[in-house]
């Protein structure tokens, strides 16, 4: 049973054309994260939401935005995708920011974004 669901699994867009990736969760977790993962590299955190509080990583380009309209859904918007933005985008959730009992993050399958 998928608990963190990302749609679509594969997304193709054109250079400069805005694209939105979606993530939903059935865990009722407070925290949702977006990562960018390039080939054979570790995931790189872009930003996260704690409830409605948005936290951007210092080195995340302005081209990347996020929305969280409710607890279950979180979106990643890329305003003007460049060739360097082609990557796997991972969504993850966590019950809280504190590691009570070592609560890990739960990851989705990812969306692989290609730029033409």
């Amino acid at each position, binding site marked *: 049973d998928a608990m963190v669901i990302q749609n679509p699994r594969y997304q193709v867009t054109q250079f400069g054309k805005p694209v939105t990736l979606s993530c939903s969760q059935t865990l009722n977790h407070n*925290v949702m*994260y977006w990562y960018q993962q390039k080939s*054979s*590299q*570790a*995931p790189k*955190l872009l930003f*996260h939401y*704690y409830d409605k509080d948005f936290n951007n990583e210092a080195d995340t380009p302005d081209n990347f935005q996020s929305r969280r309209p409710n607890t279950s859904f979180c979106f990643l918007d890329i305003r003007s995708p460049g060739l360097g933005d082609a990557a796997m985008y*991972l969504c*993850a959730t*966590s019950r*809280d*920011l*504190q*590691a009570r*009992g*070592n609560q*890990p*993050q739960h*990851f*989705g*399958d*990812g969306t692989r974004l290609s730029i033409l």
Partner: protein
Amino acid sequence: AQRVTQPEKLLSVFKGAPVELKCNYSYSGSPELFWYVQYSRQRLQLLLRHISRESIKGFTADLNKGETSFHLKKPFAQEEDSAMYYCNSWGAGGTSYGKLTFGQGTILTVHP
């Protein structure tokens, strides 16, 4: 800031051989450490958490505070263990609060 180091990008062993994936961390407090695994075309998933002191799929990992290490070990590797392994720490404060700090990852290949 927390740091997690996996010194080996690639590790190859033969089936049945012991395997050890190295992980070192830098953190002044009590670390919360995990091993995550990513099999080909599958989602990133939790393998082990240090506080549980469990064995999953034959893998164990012991926290060694003196050496600041959390190495992942398995006495007899299987072909299905081939995957990318990440050692992670959970941020308890500062700019790492509420975030996973990833190691660089180790690609394990188990040959028949």
